[in-house]
């Protein structure tokens, strides 16, 4: 394992009301590592990665991102959010802005990047996700796959050190999944620290350093993909794998 931990969780617990969503989560992710998180729905995977940029708050334990412990301090939270990019299942692009404006909004208003520079950065990222020709359109005019690539570019515009993906391909038609995964694979080969909640096991096999399997709010298994897929240690993981790979 390389260098110091970028993300560390120690004995993290979270409840929604009386429902115990996350139970004693321990996790340590080094710089440049790629983690794939999988598990049945309701297992707490999304909630767990949403702790990392404090879209959700944990109630006990410690979440440390890039050396900063997350608490109620708003300035710390905003500092972390500038370093952590996030891609959502439902894209969440800003519908009242063009693609280019979606990309430049945060650099201009959060990072105080000059407008022209922000636009150049945005265009170079749109080229990277292979849709520079859509810059002037509104999100609603794009296909789902294109929207998700814009969303990835929007997150990258902030030059994050960590990227979180919350089921980025679950809302996409099958023929569009590949174009999004290709962009993500490319990003992974460039050394980005990534945590990806997904059921795309092909992606996990090729990209992940480690696969984390969650069930009922617990991390049940954490292993390199080869090990996890060929020899899952728990019955729950075996069942899950047979369900999603079975057909």
């Amino acid at each position, binding site marked *: 394992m390389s260098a110091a931990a970028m993300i560390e969780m120690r004995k993290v617990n979270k409840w929604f009301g009386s429902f115990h969503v996350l139970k004693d989560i321990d996790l340590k992710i080094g710089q440049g590592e790629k983690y794939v998180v999988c598990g049945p729905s309701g297992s707490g995977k999304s909630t767990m990665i949403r702790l990392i940029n404090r879209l959700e708050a944990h109630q006990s334990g410690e979440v440390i991102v890039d050396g900063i412990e997350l608490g109620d301090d708003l300035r710390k939270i905003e500092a972390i959010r500038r370093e952590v990019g*996030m891609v959502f299942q439902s894209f969440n692009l800003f519908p009242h802005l063009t693609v280019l404006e979606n990309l430049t909004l945060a650099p201009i208003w959060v990072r105080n990047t000059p407008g022209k520079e922000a636009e150049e950065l945005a265009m170079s990222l749109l080229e990277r996700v292979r849709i520079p020709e859509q810059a002037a359109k509104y999100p609603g005019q794009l296909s789902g796959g294109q929207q998700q690539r814009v969303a990835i570019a929007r997150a990258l515009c902030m030059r994050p050190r960590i990227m979180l993906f919350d089921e980025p391909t679950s809302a996409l038609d099958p023929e569009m999944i590949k174009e999004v995964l290709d962009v993500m694979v490319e990003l992974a080969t460039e050394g980005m620290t990534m945590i990806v909640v997904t059921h795309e096991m092909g992606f996990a096999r090729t990209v992940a350093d480690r696969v984390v399997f969650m069930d009922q709010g617990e991390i049940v298994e954490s292993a390199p993909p080869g090990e996890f897929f060929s020899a899952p240690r728990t019955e729950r993981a075996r069942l899950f794998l047979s369900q999603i790979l079975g057909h």
Partner: protein
Amino acid sequence: MGTDPIFRTAGSIPDWARANLFSSWPNALLTIGIVYVLWQALPSLVNWAFIEAVWHAPDSKACRAASGGGACWAFVAEKHRFILFGTYPFDQHWRPALACIVLVALWSVSALRAFWKWWLALVWTGGLAVIALLMWGGAFGLPYVENERWGGLILTLLLTSFGLAFAFPLAILLALARRSTMPALQGLAVGFIELVRGVPLISLLFMASVMLPLFLPAGVTIDKLLRAQIALILFAAAYLAEVVRGGLQAIPAGQYEAADALGFSYWRKTLLVVLPQALRVSIPPLVNSFIAFFKDTSLVLIIGLFDLLSTIKVSLTEPAWTGFGVEAYLFASLIYFAFCYSMSRYSQNLERGLAKAEEGRRR
């Protein structure tokens, strides 16, 4: 509106009539009934308003004598300056007239989507400064006119415009506060909105004009017009706040999360991501509230301000011209209708335009 679905277009007039007016027995009966009522009412109305109406007369007696029971428009012709401008010095009437034009121009400019930019606020500031200069004077060779003498249409327009100009930002703040996670802020907003919405506007105006001075320390006086204006602003803000809140609720949580995840602070998120979308959604109900507020300002007559409706009332009390209430109030109705109808048409166009743009965004 040729696109209305209730009017099916057909080739010839009989076909059209059969399709639209006599498509069923109840429909046919309704058509005949309406034609009968119009047959009865229209001729005498036209007769009263136009054919037998008197347009010029030196006084009411001559007017009554000249008309065989028709309308006496000579009254409106005689009194229109007072009705429109109240007790403003007669030789200076061009000033409120120009102020009216500036105000209407400001609203018209704000109505065009090409002008929905941040500098619209500057245009308004400049425009309102020009209006203040025109109305008060006291500079550039314009004689000073104290605001006790302002009245008529310009007062109605000013109360509405200043009312909305201040109530709207206040309403946005109230709506945001009401959705805030800070209990004290939320409580204040809820308390204010419910309190103001819970009492009639008349009682607010009475409070502002009669009770407020009692609470002020001796020697401190606030102008009556200003007090009424403040009451109107608070009243409008409470209603508009609920409209804006409705718009805010229409914004999906994902938009907030995306903005949060990008590191936006609360105000940046609100101004750049949330409000532009929320206000767009709330345009139709906002315009509806604007129209209601425009007419509500006429209630200031009960505390002795001379808005359009009060000047009409006063003009009717002159002994020489008593008894022409119908003509006078019809005149007022026409003015109110012209303003309200254009607002309503505008909001319909806006909705259609935004719907089209929205469609464009959805491919």
